[in-house]
């Protein structure tokens, strides 16, 4: 029934579409396909998918153009799927309104995890003030942060930093977004603030010999707070 999520794949390569369909349907998604950008846009308007997977190298329009047009009237979560792996491409897409970015060839498990993450309607903390991931727990009401049960003292800035990452846990948050949220709109180009504070935060949050780090750096793009099911 409509318990299933609908995913729209916009990609001109038929092989990719077929295989994605297999992967997604295995996870109980209903799958729609579009071959061109134009078709993709009208499909989003008419069929109202819950999530969109968008390729950048489309025959009729640039993927980014599709994204920008889409964002003019829709907030549907968009996952970019592309061979282009340069940080500039990724940042450009994320700034244009994409919610996450996966490069081809991709790991299906990773893809599915990110899809799930971007489909979350509300950021963590809006309905339930408690957040947890691995050994980290945050109470948004009381502003307390615990690591393995022990409380950790964070400065106001460090807390704000952690909060925005936690609210978007599982998704990548660009440098620009973080700077804007934590330091204000004038600080968008001051990446050194971010680096320094991330280092401080890491020292307080991460466990030195843990197999997986919680705060993952997406080179050249931003940061991601990992949720347990993700890699």
């Amino acid at each position, binding site marked *: 029934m409509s318990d299933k999520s609908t995913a729209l794949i916009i990609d001109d390569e038929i092989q990719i579409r077929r295989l*994605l369909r297999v*992967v997604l349907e*295995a996870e109980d998604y209903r799958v729609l396909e579009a071959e061109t950008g134009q078709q993709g846009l009208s499909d989003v308007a008419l069929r109202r998918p819950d999530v969109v997977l968008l390729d950048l190298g489309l025959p009729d329009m640039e993927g980014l153009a599709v994204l920008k047009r889409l964002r003019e009237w829709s907030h549907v979560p968009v996952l970019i799927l592309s061979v282009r792996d340069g940080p500039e491409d990724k940042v450009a897409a994320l700034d244009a309104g994409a919610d996450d970015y996966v490069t081809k*060839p991709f790991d299906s498990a990773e893809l599915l995890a990110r899809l799930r993450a971007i489909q979350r309607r509300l950021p963590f903390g809006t309905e339930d003030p408690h957040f947890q991931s691995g050994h980290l727990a945050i109470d948004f009401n009381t502003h307390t942060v615990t690591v393995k049960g022990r409380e950790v003292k964070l400065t106001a800035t460090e807390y704000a930093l952690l909060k925005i990452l936690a609210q978007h846990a599982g998704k990548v948050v660009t440098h620009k977004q973080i700077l804007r949220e934590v330091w204000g709109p004038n600080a968008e180009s001051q990446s050194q603030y971010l680096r320094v504070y991330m280092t401080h935060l890491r020292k307080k949050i991460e466990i030195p010999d843990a197999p997986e780090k919680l705060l993952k750096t997406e*080179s050249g793009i931003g940061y991601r707070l990992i949720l347990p099911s993700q890699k």
Partner: protein
Amino acid sequence: MTDNTRPDPDALLAELRQEASSNRGHLTVFLGMCPGVGKTYTMLQYARQRLREGVNLIIGVVETHGRSETEALLEGLPVIPLRSVDYKGVTLKEMDLDAILQRHPDLVLVDELAHTNVPGSRHPKRYQDVLELLDAGISVYTTLNVQHLESRVDIVHQITGVTIRETVPDSVLDRADEIQLVDLTPEQLRERLEDGKVYLGEMAQAAAANFFKFENLAALREMALRFTAERADHDVRNVMRDRKISGPWKTGERLLVAIAPDAQAESLIRWTRRIAGELDCPWLAVYVEPNAPLDAAAQEQLTRNMSLARQLGGDVIVTSGQDVSEALLRVAREQNATQIVVGKPMRSPWLHWLTGRSPAYDLIRKSGYIDVYVVQPEKQTPREQPAKRLFFSNIPTSEFLLAGISTALVTGLALLIEPFIGYQSIALFYLLLVVAAGFKLHRGPVLLVAAASALLWNFLFTEPRFTLYIDTFHDAMMFVTLLVVGVAMGHLTSRLRQSEIAERRRERRTAALYDLAHQAALAPDLDTGLRAAVKLIESLFGAQPALLLRSPDHTLSDKPHPASSFSLSEKEKSVAVWAFGHRMPAGKFTDTLPDSEALHLPLQARTAVMGVLSIRSPEKSFDLAERELLEAFAALIGTILEKDHFIEAFKHAEIIETSERLHRALFDSVSHELKTPLAAVQAGIDALSRQIGAEEERQATLREIQAAVQRLHRVINNLLNMTRIEAGVIQPKLDWCDVAELVQSAADLAREGIAERRIVIEVDREFPMVKLDQALIEQCLCNLLLNAAAWSRPGTRIVVRAALDQNKLLLSVLDHGTGIRKTDLGHIFEMFYRAPESRPGGTGLGLAIVDGFVRALGGSARAANRETGGAEFTLEIPVETMRADVIRELA
């Protein structure tokens, strides 16, 4: 309406500019009234104090003259040895300016500011060396006697009878940040003299006795004290101005002194300087260019006068005009001069009228509200005085000959036709002769013709004949008129001709500049334009020009441009390099290295110096107007070169942009074609994996396919990266990185390839942030890790180390593997190079990519074998580190 209480905005601006230039060195002058007061001693005392405070100082040159107490103070102070200069077979020692510049201490001691350097030194005078040191940011302590001040030379001569030749312009002392007066009473000084503690220099015994007379010493001391007081006053006013305290401001006086090409002008200029110093007001010197060109001696004197005026801190204005007083008044009004200084006329009014030079009288008459100072100039100092030749200077004898011959001819003719037309008409003939002469000859010959005509007419044609008496009144009138008209005619026509010549000269100069602009600037290409410029200079000045252009690395090119007409010797090239670096003219006719062969003018454009124009002119020297024209040429050529440079740069940028875009498009397309099928395979594997369930054998098969796909992916990435490197389009994107984080990401990237080997990351926790291209370095480290893993056995450790060496980041990857064979070491970073025993399946690109990426960041990659076994790869990259204070501020 001037407000006398408010600070003058111009002056405030000058103050600000002075502040801005405060990265110049600090100049402290130890001033004394005469030799022997102990200036050097005091300077050394202060220097020792500075040394104790930890200031980095050295001694440039200090003259102890054998005095033991002074020498004792020298102990322990670091010295730069003097350099030896050969001059006419004698070896002399001079301060080593270049060594000091290279050493670049905080403070240098330079004794005897007024010293003249040996010819062959960079600057003729030591104070110019000091100015260069100050410009380079080195502070200077120096000593000076007040008698060496340019503006005081006359007074000292008056007081002591000694003419001081080694002088220092007052402008240098205006530059001084501090003046320490070293004072002694005359009695104390005489005591020292008797004790033999005073060094007298080249002064003969007699002159010395004269010099050190009591009255002289007292007068000199007063002069020194007064100078210092004036200075202090000046400083106070400056401070008040700084703080905008309204004080007793002067009502804006401005002095104007008229300079003529004679020696008298020198003392006028000095006088003006002194008064301007007392009134604390600006002053300017004005030269009115006459229509007649000056002879060489006068030209030289004029140049001397003008540079004296400049040295003493006055502005120099050159104007032209037939009437000197009119021109002076015009300039005075334009420049808001309140007082004009002229010299007392030395010659009688008659001569003034005849020669047309009577500035003082006219000036006084027409000056209106401007005050006129008429100053008795100092008696001529025994410099060479050009002999005054009023009528007969540089007029070729041929003209006089012509005058004589034509007069004789006309007389002959007249004698022949006299019976027919009568003697009175003959006078008119003579008159015509005079007029004709006025068109052709200079004033002297014309006057000669006039006088001769009148006298001949009188002698030969009036009654009584063959006498100089005149019988009738008519004839007498005729005679007088003939004489007067002839003289006036000669005077007028020659003046007319001269002004015409001057006009044509000016016009030629303007036309030359226009020509250059037209030909050179609008030439189809740079070379044609430069050739045209060179030809123009050759024809206009009769000199040989050579052009040295700026090379792409912003130094002066070694080879002159092919359009040049002579090639430069090594010595000349070094002078040109100096002119280029200091943006100032150098060489012949300048203050710097004046015994060079050629004059070197920097081609100064708006943003940079584009090269040097060297002009060789062995015979003649250039007068003022020609110098100015040459400098204008140089500036114009500089602008042309600059324009060309910008056009090139723009074209280059366009090409790069286009090629980048093309490359990007191609790259994306190829990338897409390679990776899409790969993505399909990968997705297929994932799908299949879910479908076949937990069956172990099939899962194992799938894992093999998976591994192959990943390997293929890595190879494709390597190939794509290699094409980026080969195309040279890598633009590093620098951003602040945490090195530990960077290394960790690289390790994550390489994860599958380094399975079963432990990675140890040795990065200091307090490692500062560095500016790097994160993606590039990650890839490099990843490749290095994969390489290390490929060559070491499972279970061994791979260590990654980071260190900072000044502004270089050192990243090392160390393994415990088999090490690198000697024969491979040299080739290991080459594209597609694979060591003979390497495992099959690699592309040989991994290390080549590391090398390529690191180079794009301006760094280098090295490989070496470790003593304890295994290999060590080190990346050395120049980086900017985040300053510790910034980090603290952000914490």
